[in-house]
C-alpha cells in the first residue's frame, strides 16, 4: 500500500533520513517509533507530500506522491502533531468544508460529513463550535476531518499526546475500527505505551535510518527466542527460584501465581521445562506464548545491539505482507 524507496532528506549539517526503504502492507497499523529527533515526523511529512525528499520516492496505492501531491492527498489523510481547527466554525461546517476541500462533490459532502461524524462518535456535537470542544473531542474531530474522503492510508503524528487515559482508549478503539474498515494506518509516537493497544507492526527509526520493520513480536523471534507466560493453579513462592535454576532461561517477571520468561524458541526445550516444573510439583494451569509488549520489543531490540549491527551494514529495508 505504501512503498517507500531510498528516501534521503537533509537539514543543514544533518542527514534527517538516510536511504530509508520499506513496503507497508495494506490493512496494517504500523507504529513508527524511535527517539526524539530520529526522523519520524520528517518521514511522515515526506510520505504526506508536505516536504520533498532529496532522493527517493513514496508511492501510495500506485501513485507517486511527489509527482502529483494534490491527487495523492485525495488518497490519504494526515494528522500532524500540532493540528488546529477552525474554532469559529461548527463541527458540521468543519467537516463539510474538509469534505469539499478533499474533492468530495457538493451533493455528497453532507453525507460524507455525517458518516465521518458517525465513525468518530461526533453526531451529537455537529452544531457545537469547534472551539468549545474538549481536547479529546478536538482530536476526534481532527481525525474525522482527515478521513472524511475515505482515504486508503491514514497517517497520524503523535495523535495521543495530551489526551487523558479515557480519550487514549477511545482513540485506540477508533484506530482499530478504521483499520477494520479498510484503512492502512501509520502512527508515529515516542510514547510506546499508547501504540501498544492497536499496532500490528513496528517500524523503528533511529538517526534517520530504518532499523527494523516487522510485525510486533517478530523482533524477539528474530533473535531466536520466545516469550512465554506461565500460570499456576496453586500459588507457590518457589516458582521464581525454580525458574532461575533453568539454564538459558530469562525470568522477565514473576510472582507466586505466574511468571513471564524468555527462552529459546524450541518446542523440545519448552517440553523439558514443563517436565522439570511438574516434577517439582508445581501445579501448571497454563503455559503459552506471551505477546511481546511493544515497549519491551523496542527495548529488547535496542539493547540487543541489533540496531547497530543493521545500521553498520547499511540501511535496513522492510517488507512485510
Amino acid at each position, binding site marked *: 500500500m505504501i512503498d517507500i524507496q531510498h528516501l534521503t532528506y*537533509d537539514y543543514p549539517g544533518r542527514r534527517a533520513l*538516510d536511504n530509508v526503504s520499506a513496503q507497508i502492507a495494506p490493512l496494517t497499523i504500523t507504529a513508527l517509533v524511535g527517539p526524539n529527533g530520529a526522523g519520524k515526523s520528517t518521514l511522515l511529512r515526506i510520505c504526506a507530500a508536505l516536504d520533498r525528499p532529496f532522493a527517493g520516492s513514496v508511492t501510495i496505492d500506485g501513485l507517486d506522491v511527489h509527482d502529483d501531491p*494534490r491527487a495523492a492527498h485525495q488518497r490519504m489523510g494526515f494528522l500532524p502533531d500540532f493540528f*488546529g481547527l*477552525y474554532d469559529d466554525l461548527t463541527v458540521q461546517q468543519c467537516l463539510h468544508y474538509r469534505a*469539499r476541500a478533499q474533492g468530495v462533490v457538493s451533493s455528497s459532502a453532507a453525507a460524507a460529513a455525517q458518516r465521518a461524524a458517525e465513525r468518530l462518535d461526533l453526531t451529537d456535537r455537529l452544531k457545537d463550535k469547534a472551539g468549545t470542544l474538549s481536547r479529546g473531542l478536538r482530536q476526534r474531530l481532527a481525525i474525522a*476531518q482527515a478521513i472524511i474522503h475515505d482515504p486508503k492510508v491514514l497517517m497520524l503524528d503523535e495523535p495521543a499526546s495530551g489526551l487523558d487515559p479515557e480519550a487514549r482508549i477511545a482513540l485506540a478503539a477508533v484506530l482499530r475500527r478504521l483499520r477494520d474498515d479498510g484503512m492502512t494506518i501509520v502512527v508515529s509516537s515516542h510514547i510506546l505505551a499508547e501504540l501498544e493497544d492497536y499496532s500490528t507492526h513496528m517500524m523503528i527509526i533511529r538517526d534517520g535510518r530504518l532499523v527494523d520493520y516487522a510485525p510486533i513480536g517478530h523482533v524477539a523471534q528474530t533473535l531466536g527466542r520466545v516469550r512465554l507466560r506461565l500460570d499456576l493453579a496453586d500459588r507457590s513462592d518457589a516458582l521464581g527460584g525454580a525458574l532461575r535454576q533453568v539454564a538459558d532461561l530469562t525470568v522477565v517477571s514473576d510472582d507466586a501465581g505466574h511468571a513471564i520468561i524468555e527462552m529459546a524458541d524450541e518446542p523440545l526445550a519448552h517440553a523439558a521445562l514443563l517436565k522439570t516444573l511438574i516434577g517439582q510439583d508445581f501445579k501448571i494451569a497454563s503455559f503459552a506464548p506471551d505477546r511481546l509488549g511493544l515497549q519491551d520489543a523496542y527495548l529488547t531490540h535496542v539493547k540487543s545491539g541489533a540496531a547497530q549491527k543493521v545500521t553498520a551494514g547499511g540501511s535496513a529495508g522492510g517488507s512485510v505482507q
Partner: protein
Amino acid sequence: MMGNPEFTRNLWLQFSWQRVLAAVIIFGIIYYAGTASGELATSTMATAGRWLFNIIIGLWGTRRAADALAEEVSGNTWETQRMSGLSAWQMVWGKLLGGTAYPWFCGLLCLALTDVILIQAGERLSAIAFFDLYSVLSGALAHAVTLGVALLLLRKAQLRRRLMVTFAQICGLIAFANTMIGDITAALHGPDIVAWFGAVYPAPMFYLVSLAVFCAWAWFGLYRLMRAELQYSNWPWAWCAFLAFSMIYAAGLADQPGQTIAAILGAPVGLGVVLVYGSFLAEPKDGVRYRWGLAALRQGNLAKALTFLPLWLITYVVTTILALVLIALLPSQPTAEIGQTWLAVWWQQYGPHTRIMLAVGILFVARDLLFLLLLNFGQWRQRADIAGILYLLIAYFPLAWIVAFVGGPHLLSLVLPYDSGNVVLTFGPALVQVIVLAVFVRQRWRAQAVPDAVLAAA
C-alpha cells in the same frame, strides 16, 4: 464562486446577517449625514468617500489579506490545508477574495454611495467608472502583494511573528499608496499622454492598463508561490517571463524621443539591480537545496536542477549581461550623444567614469550577495537578511563617510563603487572582497553538508 470551498469557508467566518446589516446601516447613516444638510460640497463628500474606501481596502483589506495566511499558520491549520485536495489556484483566489470579502463588501458599498453622490452632481459616468475600476484594481493588486509577501515570509519560516504580518501588510500598503496616490495623481493631473517605445498613449488609459497588467502578474506570482508551497516543482520560466516583461516595460518608458539605445538600456539595468536584491531577500537561502540542485546537475538531470535554481542568480546573470552590453554601447564621450535624459544628468556628474562605475557596481552587487549568503549559511540564518542589510547600510553610508574623511576620497573604492582614477585601486578592493567572501561562503556551505566520512562511519 461558491464551488471553491476555501472561498466558502471564508464567507462563513466573515459574513453574518448581523455584520451585513451593520455595514449597511453605518454607511447609510454616514451618507445621510453628509447629504441631508446640503452644506457639504459634492467634491468634499466624494473625496471623503474615496478616502474612506482607501482606508477600508488599503488598511483593513491588506491586514485581512495578510491574516488570511497568518491565521492559518498561527492556528496550526495550514498543514491541514496543504494536505487538502485544493488546487493552488483555488487556494489563491479563495484566500485573496474570501479572506478580504467583508472589507470588499464595505469598500464597494462606500464606493457605490460615493458614485451616487457624483452622479447626482452630474459627473461623467466614464470618469466615475474609470476611477472605480482603478480603485478596485489597486485594491486587488495591494491584497495580492500582501498575500505574496506573507507567503514569502512563510517560506522563510518567519510568518509566526505579528511584526512580520505587519511587514507584509505594509508592503501591500506601499503598492496601494503608489497606485492610488502616485499613479492616479499622475494620470489625472500630470501630462495628458505617456510615451512608451515612441508610441503615445492617453495617460489615464496607460496607467489603467499598466495597473491591470501588473495586477495580473501579482496574481500569477501568487499562484506560482502557492504551487511551490504545495510542493509542486516550479521551473523558473515564470520569473524569467516577469523579468523580461518588467525590463521591457521599463525600457519602453525610458524610450523617449531623442534617446540613444544606451539610455534606453540603462533603465532595465537599474531595474535589474533592484530585482536582484529584491529576489535575493525574498527567497530562502537554503544551502541544502542548492546542494540538491548541484547534485541534480551532476547527474545530468537538468529539469530537476532548474527547479532548485535560485531566482536571484538568474536575475544577477541577466542584469550583468545587460550591464556589459550597456558598457559596450555607451559612447566614450559626452552628453550630446545621449540626449536629454537621466543618463545625461548622470553623465554630467560622472562623465567618462560611467562605464567603470557600471563594471565595479556589478562587482559590488556580487559582494553584497555573497556577504548576505555568508550570513545566511551561518548560525543565525533567521535574522541573516535583516542583519546583513544593516551591515551593508553601515558600509555604504557612515563607513564610506569615515573612510573618505580619514583617508581621502580615493579610498572610497574600498567600501562602495567609486572610480578613483586608478584601475587597481578601483577594481582591486571589490575583486578581493568578492574572492574572499566566495571562499568563506564555500567553506560554510560545505560545512552544512553532511560529511561523507560521518555517513560512511555510521
